[in-house]
C-alpha cells in the first residue's frame, strides 16, 4: 500500500512540475507586462505556443547531423528528471534518495553541454556565438553554484536535498549569515542560468546580446517546443530549489497524511507565485548588462558563496 502511495506521489510530482512550468513562465511574463503598463499575453499563452509548435513540421538545415535531432530529447529528459528530483510539496518522495544536489547540477550541466553542442552543430555564426557565450557564463556560474551547495550542505550536514529541506525547516538552523549569502549567490546563479534579464534577454533577437536564443535559433517544430519546455522547466527547478532550501515551511514530511500533502501543494503554489512576482519586479527594475560585465556579476556570486563557506567555518570552529 505504501509503495503504491509512493509511486502515486512521485508521479504527481513529475506531472506537477511538467504542467506548472509553462504556467510559471506565463505568469512572470504577464506580471512583467503589467508592470510595464502593457496588457501582456494571457496566462496560458506558453501552453498554446507549445501545442502550436508540436503540430508544426520540423525544418532541418541541410548540414544538421543526427546529434542536432537527438539533442532536444536529451535536454528535455535531463531537465525533467532534475526538476522532478527537487522536493516541491513533499519531502519523502520515492526518488528522494537520489535527489542529491550535486547530481541535479550534473544533470543540468549535461543538458547545457548538449545545448551548446547543438548550437555549434549547424555551423551558423549565431549558434557559435551563443554557444561560446553560454559556456562562458556556465564556467562562472557552476563553481558559484557548487560552492553555494557546499556551504548549504555544511550547515545541514548533507547534500541530500530532502534532508537539507527538512533541516532548514527545523529549529536547529537559527540565524546564520552564511545562509543569507548563499541565498543571494543562488539567486544570482539562477538569474544567469535561466537567461533572465541582467544576463540575457531571450525575448529579443539582438545579435549583440543574444545568448540562449542564438543557440536555439535553428530549431523549429516539436524540437523547438521541447527546447522551450526544458528552459521553462529549468526556471521552475531553480525557483522550487530556492523555495525548498530557503523557504521550507509547509513542505509535507515523509509520513504525512494526504491532507498535509495537499496543503503542502497549496503552499508551494503560493511560494511559486511570490517568487515569480519578485522575479518579474526585479527584471523590470534593472537594465540588461553588457556581455563583458557578466563575469563581474557572476564573480560577485562566487565571492558571496566563498564568503558564506568561510563564515560557516568560523562559526563552526567556535
Amino acid at each position, binding site marked *: 500500500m505504501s509503495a503504491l502511495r509512493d509511486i502515486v506521489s512521485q508521479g504527481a510530482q513529475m506531472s506537477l512540475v511538467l504542467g506548472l512550468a509553462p504556467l510559471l513562465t506565463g505568469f512572470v511574463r504577464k506580471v512583467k507586462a503589467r508592470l510595464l503598463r502593457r496588457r501582456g499575453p494571457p496566462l496560458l499563452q506558453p501552453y498554446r505556443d507549445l501545442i502550436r509548435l508540436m503540430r508544426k513540421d520540423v525544418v532541418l538545415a541541410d548540414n544538421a547531423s543526427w546529434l542536432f535531432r537527438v539533442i532536444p530529447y536529451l535536454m528535455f529528459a535531463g531537465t525533467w528528471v532534475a526538476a522532478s528530483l527537487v522536493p516541491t510539496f513533499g519531502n519523502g518522495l520515492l526518488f528522494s534518495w537520489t535527489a542529491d544536489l550535486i547530481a541535479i547540477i550534473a544533470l543540468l550541466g549535461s543538458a547545457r553541454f548538449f545545448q551548446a553542442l547543438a548550437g555549434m552543430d549547424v555551423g551558423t555564426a549565431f549558434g557559435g556565438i551563443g554557444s561560446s557565450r553560454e559556456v562562458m557564463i556556465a564556467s562562472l556560474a557552476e563553481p558559484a553554484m557548487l560552492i553555494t551547495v557546499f556551504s548549504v550542505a555544511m550547515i545541514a550536514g548533507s547534500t541530500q536535498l530532502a534532508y537539507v529541506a527538512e533541516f532548514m525547516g527545523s529549529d536547529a538552523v537559527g540565524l*546564520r549569515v552564511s545562509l543569507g549569502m548563499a541565498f543571494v549567490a543562488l539567486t544570482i546563479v539562477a538569474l544567469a542560468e535561466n537567461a533572465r534579464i541582467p544576463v540575457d534577454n531571450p525575448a529579443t533577437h539582438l545579435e549583440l546580446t543574444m545568448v540562449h536564443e542564438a543557440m536555439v535559433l535553428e530549431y523549429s517544430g516539436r524540437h523547438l517546443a521541447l527546447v522551450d519546455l526544458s528552459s521553462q522547466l529549468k526556471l521552475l527547478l531553480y525557483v522550487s530549489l530556492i523555495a525548498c532550501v530557503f523557504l521550507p515551511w509547509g513542505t509535507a514530511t515523509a509520513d504525512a497524511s494526504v491532507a498535509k500533502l495537499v496543503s503542502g501543494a497549496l503552499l508551494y503554489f503560493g511560494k511559486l507565485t511570490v517568487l515569480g512576482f519578485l522575479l518579474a519586479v526585479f527584471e523590470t527594475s534593472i537594465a540588461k548588462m553588457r556581455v563583458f560585465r557578466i563575469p563581474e556579476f557572476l564573480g*560577485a556570486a562566487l565571492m558571496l558563496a566563498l*564568503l558564506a563557506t568561510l563564515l560557516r567555518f568560523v562559526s563552526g570552529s567556535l
Partner: protein
Amino acid sequence: MSSLQFDIAHLLAGSLVLASFMMLYQDRLYALLNVYALHAGVLALSVAWQAYVQQAPHLYVTALIALVFKAIIIPVALHRIIKKLGIHREIENVIGVGLTMMAGIGLVALSMVVMLRVTPGADALAREDLAFALSVVLLGLLIMVTRRNAVSQVVGFMSLENGLVLAATGAKGMPLVVEISVAFSVLIAFIVIGIFLFRIRERFDSVDVQALDRFRGERR
C-alpha cells in the same frame, strides 16, 4: 551568553566584512562613498550590539561616534570634495574586479586561519570579532593598494579604521578615552588628507597618485 546573541553579533560582523567586499566591487566614486556610509552604519550597529551584550554603556558612545562621524559627516564631506574636484565618474582600478575579489577572499581566509589558531583560549564572541576585524583591516589595505585615485584610497583608510574599532570593541575593557582619541585622530587625519587632496589636485590637475610617481622620476 545565549546562542541568539552570538548569532546576531556574528551576523553584524559578517555583514561588515560583506560591506568591505562591496567597496572592493564598486568602481564609481559616489557609489563607493555610499557603501562606505553603509559600512560605518553597520559598524555602529555592531558596536551597539556589543555594548548591549557586554553590558558596557560606554560602548554606546563609541557607536554614536561611529554613526555621527563616520556614517554621516565624513561621507558628506567626501561627497563635497568629489563635487569640487569634479571627479565623480573616475574609474581607477589597478587590476580587474574579479582578481581583486579573489585576493580579498584569500585575505579573509588568511585572517580567519591566523586568528582562530592564535586565540583558542579567548571567548567565542571576542575570537570571532577579532577574526572579522582583521579581515576588515586587510580588505581596507587591499582597497588602498588596488586604487589609483587618492579619494578612494582615503575611503580604504577609513574602512581600515572601522576594522580597528570592531577589534577594540570585541576586546573587553577598552577604555573610552582611547576610543575617543582614536576616533578624533582619524578625523584629524581625514582633514589633513582632505587638504592634501586639494594640494595634489592643484599641482597635478589630477588625484591619480601615479602622477606623484612620475613627479618623483620613477618610470613604469
